[in-house]
């Protein structure tokens, strides 16, 4: 397998996580990467609940009326409401978030305050991937803290090889999938403290689950589904995943170290490098 004549790779820390853009197209003008990281910084400054001057923080304090907010903020919040209904209420931007150490975030106030970051991250990555495609790239991966939107392949093999983190071992891989023109998102308790909350029972983790991975066409939905299924826990999460449609599939790693996956996953499992 020949490597591409040229590939571009940039890593920056934005939104509190490493964001990596890989483009594997020959003769590609990589100036779009400046725009991509400018986009991520705009998203962070607009949607971060950790920044007291963000639009979301101002919305939460009542200083910014929703009608006056940027149209993209209204669109994001509208989609979050659709996702709440799709997930039986388990994806909920009004759910109380447990922060590591218990300190309230700057932008989180009363019971009506919202935190759409569980959707915004995947959405921002999917939009960044569209920017890269509009610039002419056909083989690329945009990876924000392990949630990835990818297209084409890096090496002519037709697929990207993506490992699912072993939730019990920081350096272990539980499963490797071969993906193209797809997104993959994983929710687990290990990455940033136990920050996913069951909005119905105020649990601070997914009962019986170590991690949930969702594969599908778009990262915005995949990320939100993974968050919701983790909050559902092993039993309800598995039942909900069984009715996934639209090209979305799931891998649930349970506390007893068994793995449940939807039927579509079988065709995506990669063979190890020989």
């Amino acid at each position, binding site marked *: 397998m020949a*490597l591409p004549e*040229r*590939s*571009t*790779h940039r*890593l920056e820390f934005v939104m509190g*996580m*490493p964001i*990596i853009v*890989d483009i*594997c197209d020959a003769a590609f003008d990589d100036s779009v990467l400046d725009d991509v990281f400018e986009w991520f910084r705009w998203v962070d400054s607009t949607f971060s609940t950790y920044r007291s001057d963000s639009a979301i923080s101002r919305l939460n304090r009542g200083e910014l009326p929703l009608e006056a907010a940027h149209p993209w903020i209204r669109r994001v919040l509208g989609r979050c409401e659709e996702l709440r209904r799709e997930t039986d209420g388990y994806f909920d931007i009004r759910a109380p978030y447990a922060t590591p150490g218990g300190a309230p975030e700057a932008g989180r106030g009363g019971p009506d305050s919202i935190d759409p970051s569980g959707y915004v991250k995947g959405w921002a990555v999917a939009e960044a991937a569209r920017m890269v495609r509009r610039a002419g790239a056909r083989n690329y*991966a945009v*990876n924000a*803290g*392990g*949630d*990835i939107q*990818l297209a084409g392949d*890096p*090496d002519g093999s037709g697929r*990207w*090889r*993506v*490992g*699912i*983190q*072993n*939730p*019990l*071992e*920081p*350096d*272990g*891989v*539980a499963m*490797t*999938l071969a993906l193209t023109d797809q997104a*993959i*998102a*994983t929710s*687990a308790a*290990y*990455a940033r403290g136990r920050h996913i909350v069951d909005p119905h029972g105020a649990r601070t983790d997914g009962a019986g689950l170590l*991690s949930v*991975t969702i594969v599908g066409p778009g990262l915005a939905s995949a990320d939100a589904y993974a968050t919701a299924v983790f909050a559902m826990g092993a039993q309800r999460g598995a039942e909900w995943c069984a009715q996934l449609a639209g090209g979305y599939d799931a891998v649930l*790693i*349970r506390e007893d*170290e*068994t*793995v*449940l996956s939807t039927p579509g996953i079988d065709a995506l499992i*990669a*063979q*190890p*490098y020989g």
Partner: protein
Amino acid sequence: MHKFLPTAMASLGLAASLAAPTDALAASGSYTGAGSTMKWGTVTVTITVSGKHITNISSVYPAERPRSAFINKAAVTILRQQALQSQSFKLHNLSGATMTTVAFEKSLASAMHKAHLA
């Protein structure tokens, strides 16, 4: 349902990229990158350079428990093979967390800078 075997990990999806050509000739020898700290400890990468090529990569990884030590060794072997194949510190794509890859990459980048390879 299939049994989840942590020890069955055999591959890590990492996209290899070619390192940018450089005119600065690296002196042959060993270069140790700055330690890169992640949640579970510090990763320190050492490269051995001959001419302009990396001929060996070794790394020191956290190993808190016996099982961790085994898994870490396997994961590092894969990262190491990727870097040797691509002569690059450009690694990619683990869903769930990029911490290990990023820590390895940062320390490797540091070592390559010291060796004037990047």
